Each structure stands twice: as structure tokens, then as C-alpha cells.
């Protein structure tokens, strides 16, 4: 069926009628209305500019879950892609895979976590094999530790030790980037030079 213009459509005999045709013939309103696109294009342009300004080429390095609430810090640097050790209240994972339960290792006497260390050694072997011909991306021992902010240092130190034993000595703590302080503290980088060094040690 053909698509017809909205509005009154009289029957043929009415259209030809001298009496009735006038009713339909005159004063008919135009059914087409212009669509104002200006505001929509403006909104689209603003959204695209905003999203482009916030665009991150690195993407999501960490898998954010509800179980891990990261602490906020204002003096961190941009996170790089590296293997991620996730520490929650219940388990320790590597690259999104659960490695060991926290309860299993809670009462161990030794410092390292053997299952994590083994997994990290395997990962290191794989990374070294993949990048053996790529001199620009040689294995640098970088690892990101993504721990919940309530995690005790007792667990973190064991994870750090296991990482170091497996060859991952370049440890980064994952944080949520907070706001930078505007006024630099004297002595800090970017601040005006501090007073000359004195021989006295602080009390």
C-alpha cells in the first residue's frame, strides 16, 4: 500500500463534488514539518569533544570488580600494561584467574605463596619467549598489584615477596587517581628551591 500524506482524504465523488470539494480543497495545512537539527548537532559535537578529551588509548588495564575497592592517591603516575595480581578478601588472582584462596595461605609459616610464584614463573617464561626477538619490549619485571583497600599488609608482603621470587621486582600499586594539589609543597618537585642544607638532623 502506498504511503500517503497524513490528513483528510476525501472519497473521489466528494473530491469531484462542487459542494463538498471546497471543504477539502481550501485551507489545507502543509503536513510536512521541518526538523530542527541545529541543537542536536550542537549536542553531538559537544559530546564528541568531551569524549575525545577523555579518551585513553591504553584502555582498561585493570579489571574492576566490586570486591576490590582501590584506595585513592593524588601523586600516582599513569598505569602501564603489565600482569595484574588481584587481592580480595577471599582469594588472590593473577590476570583474572583465581590462584589461591586467602584462607588456604593464612596460616602458612613461609613467606612466599607457592601457587602464585609458580604461575608467575610460567607467565615470565611466556613473556620472555614472546618478546625474545623484540628488543624494544624486553621483559622488565613489571607487575601491578591491585588490592582492596582493607587488605592487610600481611597478605601484600607475601604477594610482593612471591613476585620478587618469580622475577617480577618492579612492583606497582594500583590506585584510583585523585585530584592533584594545586600548591606545591616547598621542597617537592616543581616547588621553589628550599633553604640550603643544614648539618643538623631533625629532632
Amino acid at each position, binding site marked *: 500500500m502506498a504511503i500517503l500524506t497524513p490528513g483528510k482524504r476525501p472519497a473521489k465523488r466528494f473530491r469531484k463534488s462542487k459542494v463538498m470539494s471546497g471543504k477539502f480543497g481550501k485551507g489545507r495545512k502543509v503536513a510536512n514539518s521541518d526538523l530542527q537539527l541545529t541543537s542536536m548537532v550542537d549536542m553531538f559535537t559537544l559530546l*564528541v569533544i568531551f*569524549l575525545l578529551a577523555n579518551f585513553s588509548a591504553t584502555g582498561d*588495564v585493570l579489571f574492576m570488580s566490586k570486591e576490590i575497592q582501590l584506595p585513592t592517591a593524588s*601523586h600516582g603516575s599513569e598505569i602501564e600494561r603489565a600482569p595484574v595480581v588481584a587481592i580480595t578478601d577471599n582469594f588472590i588472582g593473577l590476570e583474572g584467574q583465581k590462584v589461591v584462596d586467602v584462607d588456604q595461605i593464612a596460616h602458612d609459616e613461609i613467606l612466599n605463596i607457592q601457587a602464585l610464584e609458580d604461575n608467575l614463573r610460567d607467565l615470565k617464561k611466556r613473556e620472555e619467549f614472546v618478546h625474545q626477538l623484540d628488543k624494544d619490549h624486553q621483559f622488565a619485571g613489571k607487575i601491578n598489584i591491585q588490592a582492596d583497600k582493607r*587488605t592487610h599488609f600481611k597478605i601484600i608482603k607475601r604477594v610482593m615477596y612471591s613476585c620478587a621470587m618469580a622475577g617480577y621486582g618492579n612492583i*606497582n600499586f594500583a590506585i*584510583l587517581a585523585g585530584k592533584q594539589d594545586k600548591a606545591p609543597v616547598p621542597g617537592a618537585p616543581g616547588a621553589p628551591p628550599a633553604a640550603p642544607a643544614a648539618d643538623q638532623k631533625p629532632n
Partner: protein
Amino acid sequence: MAGAAVPEPSGKGKKKALDSVVNVVPFIDLLSCCLAFLLITAVWTQVGKLQVAQAGGQGEPTPPDSKTLVLTLGLSEKGFSLTAGQGAGAIDIPKKGTEFDIPALLDKLKEVKTQFPDQQTITVSPEDSVQYNDLVQTIDACMKMGLNSVTVQAVS
């Protein structure tokens, strides 16, 4: 106007309309595609890192010279304990309620930094019961004061 509507003929009779129609439909298509792509790939949480060295690891600080000193910051259930220099007495900074007193620590570190502007290294030594959040806040405070080379060491 950037609308897609065809302008109505203006003026009388035979004059050609000077208004030209800008076809915005392809532009809207492009914007829609960009918008969809950027919304899908947007990263809403800004994640950063605090680089630390582990005692005995690769990033162990070099031995101090005359312009720097061995700076050790202990974290315990009581609060901070700052030791500036080997053999020097520890400066205790007790907790404020249940929270670590970060402003007081910043003041002490500021004193150290004023006296030793070349000081870059600090060893943070938390107890087992210290939470990750407190450790990160402490490292952040150290970095704020220009002590960028932070070594984390477990209490022996």
C-alpha cells in the same frame, strides 16, 4: 541554519534563491558513529600506579651520601614512627583516633626535606596489621614531599 530543510523561495518570481542547502545528514552520521565508538571505549575510572621498590630487590636505594640520610618510616597500630638517620631517635606521630595523622607526617617530612633537599629515598616499614589504604596514603604523602623513591620493607 544547519537544518536539513529545504529553504523556501524568497523574493518575487524569477530570482534564484541565494541560500544554499548544507547537507548535514552525513555529518550527523559521522558524529553518531564517533559518539558510539567513544562511549563504548570510554574509560570512566582513572587508574594510576605508585611505583615502589622492595627491600632487597632491584630498586634498593643506593647508600646515602653526605647530602642525604637514611629515612625510615614505620607504620604500626599506634601510628607513624619516623627515623631520620642511622642511630637517630624515632619521632612518633600517634594516630588521630583511628586514622593515621597524615598532616603531621607531612610537616615532619617537610622539615626533613628542608634540611636535606636532595633526599629522594625513604623506606616505609608497615606492620602486618596495617591496611593497604593506609600504606598507599603514606606512600602518597612521601611522594607529595618529593620522596619519590619509596622502598617497602616488612618489619623484621
